[in-house]
Structures are given as structure tokens and as C-alpha cells.
């Protein structure tokens, strides 16, 4: 897919809570096609400690409006500066990057996300729905505060939740949710993105139950488009770039 570098305009900065914002970015003209699972590399150059671009998943796309959304979790200086972007500010992106989630072969689809890893699942959910699937979402967090953007997900399918402290949904990790049952599981395909520990557990569950599972990795990246070889994942075929061969991998392809 052809890559571009463009100045987008911030048209909305919706603050969800202390930690998360959703940025709506408008393309200067006609936005090229982007697939769910792909990401952008954001330039944040107004801080002494933000030298490289920051990879952020495409959270949602509005083809009509020529806008895309980014869901940003503020964990360091780069993401904090993104969180401070105001309407009218310019945001330079290299995009769209990476591969994307495949469409499922069977109908029963579960999307499992945690933390900012829920970001690409919304766009994937929209894509699934548009293609006639009825996606279910399983979103996990430490506590209620971490469960964000639920309404947007609910528009696309059923939403299950877990919290570690039990403040909302099932108490525990995503793997403890009843939808992940092991006797006669009710799902044929899983898509997951989130903390590595979570994805590994989900991948293991999928493997044990013969469920196809695609994981989206968030490896540290210097370039995002295959030039630096810094972002490698260990696969059955050796080191592969997360930014070009991924970020989406079939979980059985990874040496996990």
C-alpha cells in the first residue's frame, strides 16, 4: 500500500480521562485508503526528548469526512505532547503503515483488547460489521477508569468487559471472562492487541482451542516503514519487521 507523508489538521481533541485522549485529524485533501490494524507515525518535535516519530494505531476512519481518529494513552513525553494538541494544530504523519487484520473465514469473531491496544479494534470492528460480521469485543482494564470509548464499541457489537479490581464487568483478566470458555468455545477467530502478557495468554488460549488468532504487536520502532530493522519480532522464519511484516501476526507464527 502506498505510503504518504502529510500534514493533518487537528479538528478535535476529546479528553476521555487523565490518561487518554482521542484526536480527530483531517486530511488536507482526499485521504488514501487505510486498513484496520495499520498505524501512522506521528511527528512530535516540540520537546527535547521526542526525537523520533511515535507509532500510533488507526483508531477509526471516516472516508466521507477525510478524517481519522487516534486514541492516545499518555505514558511519556511524546504521547503527553500529543495529548496537548489543540484544534487547528498541525500534526505531521507518515501513513498508512504496516499490514492489517485479515477478514475471518468463519462467523464468530472476538476482538480482545487492553489499554491503548483497544485502539485498532474499533476500526477493525467497523470493518467487520461492514462485511457482514457481528463482532464481539472483550475489553480489559485495571479498573473502571481504564475502560474507555465503550459506547463507540457498542455501536458495532456486543461488548464484554473485565477489570482487575472488579469495579466493572467480570473481575480479573480478559482470560477470566466467560466468553473465553474452554469447553466448546463459541468463537472461531480472535483479534487481539494490548499488553504483551495479555496477548500471550490470549494466544495460548486460542492455540489450545484451535482458534485462529491474530495479534497486533507494539514493538519499539525507529522508522515505521522497514528502513531501520529495529522493530523485529522473533518468528518461525527468524527476525521479521513488526512495521512491515506486522504489526499483525498470526499468533502461531510468533516464537512466543
Amino acid at each position, binding site marked *: 500500500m*502506498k*505510503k*504518504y*507523508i502529510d500534514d493533518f489538521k487537528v479538528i478535535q481533541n476529546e479528553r476521555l480521562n487523565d490518561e487518554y485522549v482521542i484526536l480527530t485529524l483531517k486530511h488536507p485533501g482526499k485521504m488514501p485508503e487505510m486498513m484496520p490494524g495499520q498505524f501512522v507515525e506521528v*511527528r512530535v518535535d516540540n520537546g*527535547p*526528548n*521526542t*526525537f*523520533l*516519530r511515535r507509532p500510533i494505531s488507526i483508531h477509526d476512519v471516516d472516508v466521507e469526512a477525510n478524517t481519522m481518529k487516534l486514541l492516545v494513552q499518555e505514558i511519556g513525553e511524546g504521547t503527553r505532547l500529543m495529548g496537548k494538541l489543540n484544534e487547528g494544530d498541525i500534526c505531521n504523519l*507518515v501513513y498508512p503503515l504496516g499490514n492489517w487484520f485479515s477478514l475471518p473465514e468463519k462467523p464468530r469473531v472476538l476482538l480482545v483488547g487492553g489499554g491503548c491496544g483497544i485502539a485498532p479494534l474499533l476500526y477493525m470492528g467497523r470493518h467487520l460489521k461492514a462485511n457482514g460480521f457481528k463482532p464481539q469485543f472483550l475489553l480489559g482494564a485495571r479498573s473502571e477508569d481504564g475502560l474507555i470509548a465503550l459506547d463507540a464499541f457498542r455501536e458495532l457489537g456486543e461488548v464484554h468487559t473485565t477489570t482487575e479490581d472488579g469495579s466493572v464487568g467480570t473481575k480479573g483478566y480478559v482470560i477470566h471472562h466467560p466468553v473465553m470458555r474452554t469447553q466448546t468455545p463459541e468463537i472461531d477467530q480472535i483479534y487481539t492487541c494490548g499488553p504483551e502478557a495479555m496477548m500471550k495468554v490470549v494466544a495460548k488460549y486460542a492455540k489450545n482451542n484451535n482458534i485462529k488468532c491474530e495479534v497486533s504487536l507494539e*514493538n*519499539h*520502532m*525507529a*522508522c*515505521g*516503514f*522497514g*528502513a*531501520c*530493522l*529495529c*522493530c*523485529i*519480532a*522473533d518468528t518461525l522464519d*527468524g*527476525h521479521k519487521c513488526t512495521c512491515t511484516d506486522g504489526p499483525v501476526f498470526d499468533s502461531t507464527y510468533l516464537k512466543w
Partner: protein
Amino acid sequence: MVDLKIDLNGLELKNPVMTASGTFGYGEEFMDFFDISCLGGVLVKGTTLEHREGNAYPRMAETPQGMLNAVGLQNKGVHYFAEHIYPRIKDYDTHMLVNVSGSTIEDYIKTAEVVNELDNIPGIELNISCPNVKEGGMAFGTSCPSAVSVVEAVRQVYKKHLMVKLSPNVTNIAEIAAAVEGAGADSISLINTLLGMAIDAKTRRPLLSTITGGLSGPAVKPVALRMVWQVAQAVKVPIVGMGGIMNTTDAIEFMLAGASAIQVGTANFIDPCVTEKIVKGLEAYCIENGFDKVSDLVGAMEV
């Protein structure tokens, strides 16, 4: 009209702007962004005799105005390059030079021999300075006798342009440059990365799988400029300068210090179009400042 051509000891460049090895893939990754035929040259990925998996993840850490990498020469080996990659890139309308690395002199010789047979590769850059693998050649680049031995050996078998890339992790870079010139280098490029390290104070662990890695980016620019200037006083062969070049102004500084051409590395990650901009920027600078030929900038610093 400004004459942007540079004569690099017989290798004619369209203009002084090249891309640094390991930061530009095989050029293909950048074709979506601009037409790389506007460049003076492309240094392809570090290439070794055998396939190398490189180091384990994590391989990079951001530092103040710089980055550390520990890629460790991941590549499929020179034979794979000759068979599978060369055919794809051989018709690019710019000089495609191969960055050659090795663990032993034998490795270097054999790799150079393979590249010597590729008609459309007009030169190699001999990397005697990679800090990221135990046997990545850095040891060769840190003493005069070992640098001379590998350059002399490769000179025997390699008939085209032989550029030698120096390590900055040395006490006296001018001495090594002079030795390498004496051993038959056609040009000298510098600097490779400075050996550095980063630690995560939260986890109390190193940020790279290899603990130490190679520092690049604007942070190293003052050191790189100084070394280019020192080497320019010490050798007659042309110099290709690099280290932290982010824009036209930086490129001009390297030329003023004595570099005939420059390479851009880390900056490609941040602005994939940066090299195209520098080509245009050099022309604009020459016009503004009344230089007919960009080559008049080489070593033009007034002291």
C-alpha cells in the same frame, strides 16, 4: 545554474547527498516518498558473507536528540543480495554502493569479491567500524595496523571505488585515516556510530538487548564535524561526512569542514524526504551565496 556534481576520486556523483548504510534499506522503502534517482548515491544495508539474524529485540532506544541502535548487521548475506536484491535495484539511476562488513579479513575479501562482479555497483563502503556485533569490524577500525590489513586485503581483490568507513570510537582518527589512505582507500567516510548505552531507571535494566549500542543523530554532530575536519587535514583522498545531518545547514557544515559528499542516516526515519530536500537546499544555498559549483564549499571554512 549551480553545478552540483562531485568528483569522488573518479566516482562522479550527481550531487553530494548520499544515504547512510542501515538507514535507507535498499532504497525501495523510500520510493513512495520521492524518486531516489535525485540522490548522489545510496549506501545499501550492511552486507556480510553469510546470512545474519542480527541481535535480539530490543534494538533501539531514544536518547536526547539521538538514538542508540543494536541491529547487529541483520542481512541475508552477499550471495542472496547478488541473486535477489541486486536485480531489483541495479537499474536505479543513482550510485548504489554496498556497505561491506565482516568478522574476519577472509569474510571481507570474499564479500568484496562477490560485489566486484556486480556491474552496476560502482563501489563499496568498507565498514571497519560497526560497534554492534562482537566481530563487526569495529576492532579493525580502532587500530592502524588492523585497519591497514583489512583495507590492503580488500584492495587486492576489489577493483572499483573503495570507500572506507571509520569508527569514531578512537583516540586519534586522523592517524587511522592516514593509514587507511595509505592502504589504498579511494575515499574515506565517517563517522559510524559512537558506542553508547541507555538504562531504564524504572526497571533498572539496559534498554538494548546488547547493553551497549551505536549512537547516531544530532547529538553526535559536533563530534562528527570535528573528526571530519581533523581527517581533512590528514588525508588527500575525498571525505564523505556524516553524523547527525538533519537538514541543508548541517550538510553545508560538513562540506565546509572538508567533506566532498555527505551521508544522511537517522534523519531518514524522521523525514523520509529529507535527502531530496537537502539536494534542493544545497542548490539554493549556492545561489544565495554566489557559488557556481557546490564543490567550492568543500573545506571552505575560514579559520
